[in-house]
Each structure stands twice: as C-alpha cells, then as structure tokens.
C-alpha cells in the first residue's frame, strides 16, 4: 500500500506533556528507589533511597491532584472513556497488521488521541493502578499514624505487598509502553509528539488550525 501524505496536528498540550514527563521522572525514581528498598541493589543507600522515595511519592500525590483537576476541567476525561468499538481491530493490527506494514486502523485525532486499546490501558493506569500505588504508598508512609487515623489492626505486610505488586505492574507497563512508542509510522514519531506536542498523521484527519497558530504565536515571543 502507498503511504498517504502526512500532516502535523497539535495533539498534546504543554501541560499534558509536562505532566507526562514529570510522571515519567517520578515513576522511574520511585521504581529505582523502591526496588533498592526491597534490597535488589545498592545505589543511593537504604536511608537516602527511602527519603527520595517518600519525597517523590508525596510530590506525585500532590501533582496528581492537579492532573485530576486538569482532566476534568478540560474535558480531557472523555479521552479515557473505554469503548469496545474497534478494539478487536486494534488488537488484530498489533498482532498481525503491523507486520504487514498496514497503517494504524484508528489514527489519532485531536478529540480522540487514544485508540481503544490505549483508552483501556490508560484508564486502568490512571483510575486503578496509579491510585492504588498512591493510596498504598501513602498508607505505608503514614504507618505510624494508623491508630490516629482509625486504622488499627490493618496489616502493613498486606499494604506493602499490594504496593510491591503495583510496582511490578508499573514496570511491566513501562516496558510495553516504551516499546509501543516505537510503533508509530516512524520509530520516533510518538516520542517526538510527546516532546513537541505535534504528531504526524495521514492527511485527511481533521486538524484544528487555531491550535497550531496559537502555539507558534505564544512561544515565538
């Protein structure tokens, strides 16, 4: 098949990109220090690893509140509504079509930047896995206040184990995620989009020109 002409659309706003990379840094730091705390390796030293882990974890919790605010006030939450439409097609694409050089069956649009599979994964991530990590992490951190919080008799072992399982789930996600960003029409297309905000899509996808103009004007000053 012939590749169609590519055009740029502005897909990710500045805050969204900032949030993405901030969260990347947080998750990487938390994974490294978290696994150090379990005794997997020595990098910062146990005490420093704990301090970094606690600090970053709390910072993430606060930053996440801004993300939740952003998601709801901008209407971006709609991007995370799961859909069964075309999900089979997307799965078929990654399992088969991609090897045939087929184009992605659900091209990115400004108002639908996640394909059905992404919606499902990111919703699980943002609504389940990350909150579970944050809640268990916060409880773990506040262990000494449990009696004051009315949580007498809760099991630290259970909280810590859920937190550990979540960490493995996040690490697995990270591996697949890093790989998936190479599956754009070029290896670096998706990465570039998350840095610049601009994603190349096949011509014919509706592009909101005002966004483009706004972005240039704003930053040229």
């Amino acid at each position, binding site marked *: 098949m012939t590749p169609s002409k590519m055009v740029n659309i502005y897909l990710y706003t500045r805050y969204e990109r900032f949030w993405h990379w901030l969260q990347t840094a947080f998750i990487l*730091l938390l994974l490294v220090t978290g696994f150090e705390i379990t005794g997997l390796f020595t990098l910062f030293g146990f005490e420093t690893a704990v301090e970094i882990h606690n600090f970053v974890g709390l910072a993430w919790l606060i930053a996440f509140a801004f993300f939740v605010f952003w998601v709801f006030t901008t209407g971006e939450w709609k991007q995370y509504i799961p859909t069964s439409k075309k999900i089979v097609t997307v799965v078929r694409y990654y399992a088969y079509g991609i090897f045939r050089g087929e184009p992605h069956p659900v091209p990115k649009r400004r108002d639908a930047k996640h394909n059905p599979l992404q919606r499902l994964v990111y919703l699980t991530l943002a609504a389940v896995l990350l909150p579970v990590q944050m809640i268990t992490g916060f409880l773990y951190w506040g262990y000494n206040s449990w009696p004051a919080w009315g949580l007498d008799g809760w099991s630290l072992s259970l909280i810590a184990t859920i937190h*550990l399982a979540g960490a493995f789930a996040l690490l697995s996600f990270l591996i697949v995620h890093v790989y998936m960003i190479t599956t754009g029409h070029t290896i670096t297309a998706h990465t570039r989009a998350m840095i610049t905000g601009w994603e190349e899509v096949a011509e014919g996808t509706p592009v909101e020109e005002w966004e483009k103009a706004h972005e240039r004007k704003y930053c040229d000053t």
Partner: protein
Amino acid sequence: MKKTNWPSCTRILIFGLLLAAIAASPGWAAVADEDPMAPGRKLARQAVKALETGATIDHGKHTALQKEFADGQAITAACISCHSEAADQFKQTIHWSWIGSTDANGKQLGKAGDSLNNFCISTNKGADKSCNACHPGWDGKAEGINCLTCHSRKPINWSEAFEDYQAFAASDDPSEKEIATEIQAEIQTAARSIGRPTRANCGECHFKGGGGDGVKHGDLDTSLAKPNKKLDVHMGVDGQNFDCTRCHTTVRHHVAGRIYSKPAATDRKSLIEDDLTPKITCVSCHSSTPHAAGHKANDHTDKVACQSCHIPDFARVVPTKMSWDWSRAGKLKNGKPYKVKGPLGTIDYMTIKGQMTWAKNVKPEYAWFNGSMTTLTVKDPIDPTTVVPVTAPVGNATDPNARIYPFKVHRGKQPYDKVHKTLLAPLLSGKDGYWSTRDWQRALTKGQQAMQVPYSGEFDFVATSYVFPTTHMVTPKDNTVACIECHVSANGRLAAIEGVYLPGRDTNKTVTFLGWIAVLGSLAGVCFHGLGRLITNGNGKKERAS
C-alpha cells in the same frame, strides 16, 4: 515530509522543571540531617545543666570521723551518728538483702535467694563465702553495713587492713606499732573521703560481676571507670562525665534499675511529664521523639529501643565472656589442674571452671523486651532437651510496652538434676566446694543442702542461656547502627525478630517471583514483537529506510 516548527522553549521548560524536581529530592533529605542539635539532645542538655550540686559538708572535718577506728563497725557507727536513717534505709534495699522479691510459694528471687545464673551459678544462700567479696557489709551480712563500699573515694582492702591493724596494734614491738599507726592513717583517710558513689565505687562490683573484669554484662567493665565519649557518650570524661547515679536515680538508698523480673521503669515518662521520675530510661531526659522533626527515627521509638541503634556493639575495650561450659571442667595435665590463655589474653580453659569463650566488639542479639525478665530458680522445672533460658526477656510485638532491645546472651552448660529436672546449685568455694575437691557429687550435694532443695544424686549437664540488656556504652550519634543493618533481606541484625513487617527484610517472595515473571514476560513479548516487525519488514521499517 515536513519538519515541524516546534518551539524549543517548551522543551527547555519541561526539562528545567524535571531537573529541579530531581535535584530537590536528595537536597531535601540533607536538610533533616544537618540539624546541629536534635530536640532530644537539647532537652537532655537542659535537664543536666546544674551538674555541680553544692555540698554543705566536708567529711574530712567532721568531728565524728576524727578518731581511731579499730574495726569496721566503729566507722559505720560514726556514719549513723549523723545519718540516723541511712542504715535502716539501706537494709531495705536489694544491694543489702540480695533478695528481689518473694512469691506466694516462698520462691525467692535474688542472689541470696533461689535465683541462678550460668556463670558461678549460685551463692548457695550465702554458703559460698567467696561471693561476699561483693556484699556491702564488713564481712558478710552478720558484721553490718560497710558504708564506705559505696561512699569512700579512697577505698582500701578493709578486711586486710583491719586484720593487720588489730594484729600490729596489739604488738609490743615499736616498729609493728608504727605499722599499725600507718594502717590506721590509711583507714582514717578512707573513712573521711566521703561522697556520692562514683563510677569506681559501683564498678568495684558491677564492672567485675562474675568474678572478673567484664565477665558478665559486656556493657559494664573497668573501661567505664574513665571512658572517653566514644566509648560512652554519657560517662565520657571528655563529655558529660556522668556518674552511675546520674541515671540510676537514688531515693532513700534505693537505686533505680531492674530487679530480676521487676522492670527498671514501668512507663517511659520524661522529666517534663514528671520531674521526680527516675532518670533510668532514655525518654526521661531525651523525650520519646528525640530526633529532628520529620526524621524517620522518631517513628521507630514505638517499636525499637534507643539502645538498639545507639549501641552498635559492646565490650569495645575489655573482652566479655560469651560462653562457659562447666561440663568440661576437671581435666588434668600431668595429673595437675591447669589453665589455658586465649588470644584475647583471657583464660579460656581452667580445670576448676571448664571451657570459656570471650569476645570483644560484640554485636548484640535482639529481642522484644518490656522491661521484665523471666528468671529461673533452683526450684523451677526445666526441659533438658532444649536450651534452658535461665533468664529471658519478656515481651512481644503486640505488647505496647515492649521494644526491640539489644542483649548480650551468655551461653552455658551447667549441671542439672536428671530426676527432678531442675538446675543444680553446686558449692564452689570452701573446703567442700568444687574448686577444692573437683568432685561434682560432693559440691552438688553440699550446694543443694545449703539451698534447702532436694538433690536426687543423678546429674548431667544442660545447655543454658542468660541474657543481659545492653544499655551502657552508648556511642556518639555518628557511630549508630545504619538502617541497612536491619532493613536487609538476609542476615540482618533483626533477622530473628517476629511480629513486625520490616521493610527490606520482609519483601513478599511470592509476589517478587511472580512480578519478575511478569516483567520478563513483558520484555520477552516486546522483543519478539519487535523482531517480528524487523523480519517482516513491517510498520516503521520503511519510513526509517527512506
């Protein structure tokens, strides 16, 4: 394909913020550590500010002491002529009675009672006269209190001094009379150099418990007579220079401290909560959140005793005895008793005592401890198939008063009655004692008789343990136990502690195993997928090539 004209300022903004976020983390951590004086240290410094107490008496000038003393009782009488209540008070204390408490069945805890240890085992209720070396009487209880044991700054060998004095003073030989005068001068100097007990006074017995320097406790030995700050941050002569009674608050001659099963303090109160509380706990002066605000160590104080982190090891100068196997006593070389010296300069084998091991710089063992101890007596049944705990700490993770606490554990092998299943109390010194006769049967029979407990005549040796809470030799803050020494998956200091989830030690193994399978599975999955794309020349390949 058109290159997008994306703005570089956005990139700079993002990475700038990221860098700031990363840089802030360790920076924040450092702030807490830089606090020059932690709150608990500040509090304690305030509490001990007025160290010099203004004494209003000079015993050297006291008329009651300006005379000749022909025997010990004469000195005590002189003391009591002013300190009218002192003798009565003192006779109430365990220092005099060597009896801790007596339970409903008449079982007496205490050296002079039914208690045992795994060193010289028992005083045989006073029948073993060698134990009297540490009794604060002139010669055992019968001769009355020797106030000077604890209160003389220039103590001498009293029994020897009086024996010589009496002999020479009775002589007609002028040169012997002169010697008597000299001895009397020494006695008088000792009797007039009076003060509150110093470390040397207490140490005379407590540094040498078990019959030699550092034998018993491990955290108490003659190195604490004049320690530096590094050896003991409280007693260091280059620091606070505390005497024992600075913490072992003494009221009417009762010295604060644990008495067998009775804890040294039932609650951890600071001086702010109770200004007359004994200063026997760390909390008394340092509060229960002594570290800088936000420091994780403050969160540890509900489960971990201060001592656990602040005393990384004991016996740092003088070796301490770690084990004593009585079953190997009695061996002869060329038909004679003998001794073997070990690499630390200690006696490792002695015919009359058996095999002993010693150690320096010993890492404590740790256990839950609420301040109470179980202590075995000669009347308690034992299970000879196990290691018999002669003393053991009481407490567990659910006990709100219990903390993880460091201990010296002394392991031994000592005689027990095979029929009655009790530990035995052999007589050691004197003409019937094992040290003279090397005859266990005779020593055990005499010893048990003195204890007024039955002996079947059949004995063997059983493995035992005896614990000492480690609380002295508190090190300066830079030498404390590091987090990783406990928060580690294998062989940590707290490897044996049960009932708490210890991060770094108790990471769930099943979840870890399954987790790595998931991670490796993901990795393998994406590798195969990527390989597939390469081989099939699929998505992504063409564009890269173009």
